[in-house]
């Protein structure tokens, strides 16, 4: 008999009722987006254009990327109409 170790179903079915697969894509980043809260006008362009959709509103004041998953592509910084986001080398944050 066959076992059900890797698959729960008879064929090649994956089941998202179980926890999703997820990679630590934050590890890929060489630069991180840093938001100047003062300059942020809360327009949301960074949020809509973020390919990973991890830029979210923080309170009512500004947007911020989830650094666990942000790959550091820099689109948010580029698309920010106020240049309120700068891409800063990860080296700067190494203690």
């Amino acid at each position: 008999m066959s076992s059900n170790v890797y698959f729960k179903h008879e064929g090649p079915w994956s089941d998202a009722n179980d926890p999703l697969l997820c990679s630590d894509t934050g590890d890929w980043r060489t630069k991180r987006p840093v938001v100047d809260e003062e300059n942020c006008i809360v327009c949301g362009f960074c949020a809509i254009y973020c390919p990973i959709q991890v830029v979210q509103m923080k309170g009512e004041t500004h947007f911020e990327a989830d650094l666990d998953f942000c790959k550091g592509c820099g689109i948010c910084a580029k698309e920010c109409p106020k240049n309120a986001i700068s891409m800063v080398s990860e080296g700067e944050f190494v203690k």
Partner: protein
Amino acid sequence: MTEKKKAKLTPVLDYLKHEDPFAKGVAFCPGCGLELLLRFIPQVMGNDIVITGTPSCSAPVLLGQNNQSWHKLSYFGTLMTGAAANATGLARYYKKAGIDNTVVCFNGDGTAADIGFGNLSGAAERNEPFIYICYDNEGYMNTGVQKSGTTPYGATTTTTPFGAASKGKNLRRMNLALKMAMHKIPYAATATLSDLGDLAKKLLKAKEMKEKGFCFLHVFAPCPTGWGAAPDNTIEICRRAVKTNYFPLWEAENGKIRMTKTIKKPKPVKTYTELMKKFKFMDEEDHKILQDDVDYEYCILGGLSVLEAECQLPLPADE
């Protein structure tokens, strides 16, 4: 804290009514146009769509690994050769069984324009009740950047490399979206990532129109890795593709072609090509060929769209 100046939130956010069904960490390159599109679609259309995917950059994420998934959508992993036929089978069975459904057949340009075009065309001819979305990154990116039917003139790929006897692809790209519109389907449209409001409207329109039959969306989605572009330029590339008329935004509803964004003074195509290394071997003469191609396609499109009053398709007999 002093009261700072706030802008109005972009209305695009209003279209994102549903959860992003994807895991936050998935294996797309930084700046990937496909990733933005793939996360955008279910946020606009809902998480109850059934999405089909083919071998491509989307497959490692759309399709699971063993029993686990990268997202919460119902999906069907298919072959490039038969993607539209698979979606046909799903949509027709749901119809027979009386199950409400939105089947989204999601493919790259390699499937849509090349190997799977036969069954895409067949499904359109039969007016099958589903939505076909082609994300166009102008080549076979997942296998390492090879030329496809939508790769533009002058682009270097690994099968149209630069060399003593070659400057890149020396053939013109096909106009897939116009070809699909000529199937007289209820809805065909182009869209891109710089104009997300326009894209959202078209996704919703397709969802509505698929009740009448086949809907086709051609979405221009840059690949920074394959095109030799900076990852942060993805949206800017889309924007310039629109502003140069390299990729005009239009829709055809019941055969009636309408520009959804008109560019009053189109920029030279060079302002678009300069953002990517894949065009770096193009000289002035090559740019003229590409520009002529862009102008020709826009001319055809313009001609079709001004005829809008006369060229609406008659409604089906049972309407």
